[in-house]
């Protein structure tokens, strides 16, 4: 497998000629993907990038991708502090694997971490299982993906060190960095994968992560667009959950101009569990969009979704969550809870909590609320001598706490709490919503 040439970063965004050209340039890199790329490029040509008329992209802001960026200089944002000390680190800079910045160390028996190119060279048949995509964003990823990480954990193996995949963008031009990760757990295996983004405002980081969580395995999956994140970030996870298996996902959206985190979770085995949570803290000019589809295909399974969003300035926070219960998937328990707080007159919050139920013996519910901080609670706190700023901070912290308390790893939870405090110090000054 030859290493990728350090050429100019991809420029193709929406222009189909450029997409075709780039996908041909890439053809030599991962020859196993030849058909996959060309078919995806053809389908992309027909569909183009989704617009607000596409129901699933109703609230997502992809307009920055279609405009010229402001003059900006290329810069390397550097790497964020690792979330859990001692993690395995895989760093991708502008879509290229950066070996010098990554750290793998000694892996336990049964655990393999490789680049997608090497993985496909060794297992060419697997190229056919790669998800092609059903919208322009995923199709573009299929047509133009350059690399990615493949994490395999054998049966009965537990990978104690979390794997942190860091996506770095450095370009000052409108560039798309398309990566494809795969997480393949064996039965009763356990792993934690953390995806993070840092970068420049003009870049577009577009990743698709495919994960298999078979019988009795547990995958903890965190996706974090923290305060170092910038530009447009689209991340789609496609996860299958087997019998007695658990998928535990949490997404944090704090940075980025336009961030969209997609989770498609198929519960395929009885006793399977999916917990798909998220927290968005959006400031002026930011768009955060969480889209989940949890599909129950078999009986006796459970899913929970807990999302919280706080919007300040001209922020737009959105949640489109869907629970599908297939015919004959009886005895399903599925809950969905979305709450948004709007701190500023100019902010917008959207919610579309959707249920699609085709079996009768199920208990499914969803609740959604949108509003401002409770005036009575604020009054109560201030009457106790707490300053209005602190009172707001306390209430927002408690509000976000609904997501934090569901995180099992202490390091992650503490860092998340710290990130929330930092965000609040910049947004809970009381000036914008007096």
């Amino acid at each position, binding site marked *: 497998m030859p290493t990728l040439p350090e050429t100019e970063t991809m420029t193709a965004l929406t222009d189909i000629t450029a997409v075709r050209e780039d996908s041909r340039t890439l053809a030599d890199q991962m020859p196993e993907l030849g058909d996959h790329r060309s078919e995806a490029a053809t389908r992309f040509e027909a569909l183009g990038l989704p617009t607000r008329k596409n*129901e699933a992209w109703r609230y997502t802001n992809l307009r920055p991708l279609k405009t010229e960026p402001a003059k900006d200089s290329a810069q390397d944002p550097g790497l964020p502090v690792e979330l859990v000390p001692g993690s395995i680190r895989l760093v991708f800079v502008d879509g290229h694997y950066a070996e010098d910045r990554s750290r793998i160390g000694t892996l336990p028996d049964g655990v393999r971490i490789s680049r997608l190119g090497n993985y496909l060279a060794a297992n060419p048949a697997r190229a056919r299982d790669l998800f092609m995509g059903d919208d322009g964003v995923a199709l573009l990823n299929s047509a133009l993906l350059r690399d990615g990480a493949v994490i395999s954990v054998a049966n009965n193996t537990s990978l104690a060190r979390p794997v942190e995949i860091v996506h770095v963008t450095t370009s000052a031009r409108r560039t798309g960095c398309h990566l494809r990760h795969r997480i393949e757990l064996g039965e009763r295996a356990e792993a934690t994968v953390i995806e993070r983004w840092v970068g420049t405002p003009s870049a577009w980081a577009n990743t698709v992560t495919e994960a298999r969580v078979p019988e009795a395995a547990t995958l903890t999956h965190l996706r974090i667009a923290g305060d170092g994140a910038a530009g447009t970030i689209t991340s789609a996870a496609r996860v299958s959950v087997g019998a007695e298996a658990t998928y535990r996902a949490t997404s944090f959206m704090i940075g980025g101009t336009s961030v969209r985190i997609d989770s498609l979770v198929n519960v395929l085995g009885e006793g399977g569990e999916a917990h798909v949570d998220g927290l968005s803290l959006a400031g002026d000019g930011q768009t955060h969009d969480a889209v989940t589809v949890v599909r129950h295909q078999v009986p006796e399974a459970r899913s929970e979704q807990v999302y919280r969003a706080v919007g300040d300035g001209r922020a737009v926070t959105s949640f489109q969550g869907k629970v599908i219960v297939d*015919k*004959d998937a*009886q005895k399903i328990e599925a809950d969905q809870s979305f709450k*948004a707080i*709007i*701190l*500023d*007159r*100019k*902010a*917008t*919050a*959207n*919610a*579309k*909590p*959707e*249920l*699609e*139920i*085709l*079996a*009768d*013996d*199920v*208990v*499914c*519910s*969803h*609740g*959604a*609320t*949108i*509003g*401002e901080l409770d005036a009575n609670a604020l009054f109560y706190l201030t009457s106790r001598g707490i300053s209005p700023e602190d009172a707001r901070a306390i209430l927002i912290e408690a509000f976000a706490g609904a997501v934090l308390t569901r995180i099992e790893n202490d390091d992650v939870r503490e860092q998340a709490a710290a990130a929330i405090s930092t965000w609040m110090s910049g947004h809970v000054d009381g000036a914008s*919503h007096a």
Partner: protein
Amino acid sequence: MAGTKDAIDQVEEATGSYKHGFISDIDMDRIEKGLNEDIIRAISAKKNEPEWMLDWRLKAFAQWQKMDEPDWAKLQYPPIDYQDAYYYAAPKSADKPKSLDEVDPELLRIYEKLGIPLEEQKVLAGVEGAKKVAVDAVFDSVSVATTFREELKKAGVIFMSISEAIHDYPDLVRQYLGSVVPVRDNYFACLNCAVFTDGTFVYIPKGVRCPMELSTYFRINAESTGQFERTLIVAEEGSYVSYLEGCTAPMRDENQLHAAVVELVAMQDAEIKYSTVQNWYPGDKDGKGGIYNFVTKRGLCKGARSKISWTQVETGSAITWKYPSCVLAGDDSVGEFYSVAVTNNYQQADTGTKMIHQGKRSRSTIISKGISAGKSHNTYRGLVKVAPGAEGVRNYTQCDSLLVSDTSGAHTVPYIEVQNPSAQIEHEATTSKISEDQMFYARARGLDEEEAVAMIVNGFCKDVMQHLPMEFAVEAQKLLGISLEGSVG
């Protein structure tokens, strides 16, 4: 629980048939099948309409030809051939009857059979001591009778078919027609603008409380005929009106199209209460036949403190596509939506509401109860939108779905879009089936399975049913029972 006994009796006596499914043999005057400018000119000529009305229709038709049929609803049906239908069918009679005595007795008998007596001394649904209800009876494409007109006129209330209103009150009609649902609002509303044949016009003057319930009873009778009616209700400052709407159709193997438009305008302090019991023919148990019901209903709360309340019980139609909505433009205005939608066999319903909050402190309540049985699909689709300038908006939404079979589907698609921080929006939804505990308890009290289901379903719908006028509540409860017949065991 009052009415449950009736419902059970009805279930027993109905023996599997749609009781309004008879076909009446009435001499009809039709315009040939098809849809084109000439047909529209012919409809307009039949109705002897002024030039402006024809222009309006033709513009709508030109617009309609440029539009695409919407496909976003969770509905599946074969493509509709808009050319293969009659757009005008009216019972033959020399002229519009001047009084009820001149109405074809055969027509009166049909309405009698439907439980809608048109003789003024009688009251709806045979309920003893009930209030008077004025009825506008629309038969296929035309209004055949309007009762209590004189008595209403004394109160200053205008209650007549919209065709008459176009002649008698052209300024009023022109001012409000299309003001709430614009011509190009959607595909089906636009089609209606081009081909609507009749409907009801109601005008309540300032400060008048309408002395009786008003109602329109829609009947599709002729085969291969679409019904396109328009209802326009204007409530001036401080007035009040309660309006009821009922509909039935014969059992036919074909699918008939019904595309109506209802526009409500409530001025300052006015209140409009609009209740519907929709019982179009739902098709047989194999999904053959039934009405395609594509309806646009929208109310504008124009003035401060105005109120519009929609209550609907949807039991009929093979396809229901219907979203009665409120544009809450006035400060402190109130919108309400109470809905029960029951689907059985192969019925599909995609229904809900939109509450568009523009006025300060406007409030809305949405209570939706969906019941799916057989192989049916029942979808709640709704939007609550808060505009940036709307301070202190309050919304409460509750959508509950009850699944009565393991082959049916219940779906909830709510949209919430808030652009003002002072809004307080709450949405709750649940999907469940009738619990075994509930059934066991009811059975232990000596109810059989069907009675127990009818009782539990009625309890599930109570929050909505209590908003129906009494005469309708009784009928609606019976209908619930009939609609679910054969869905258990």
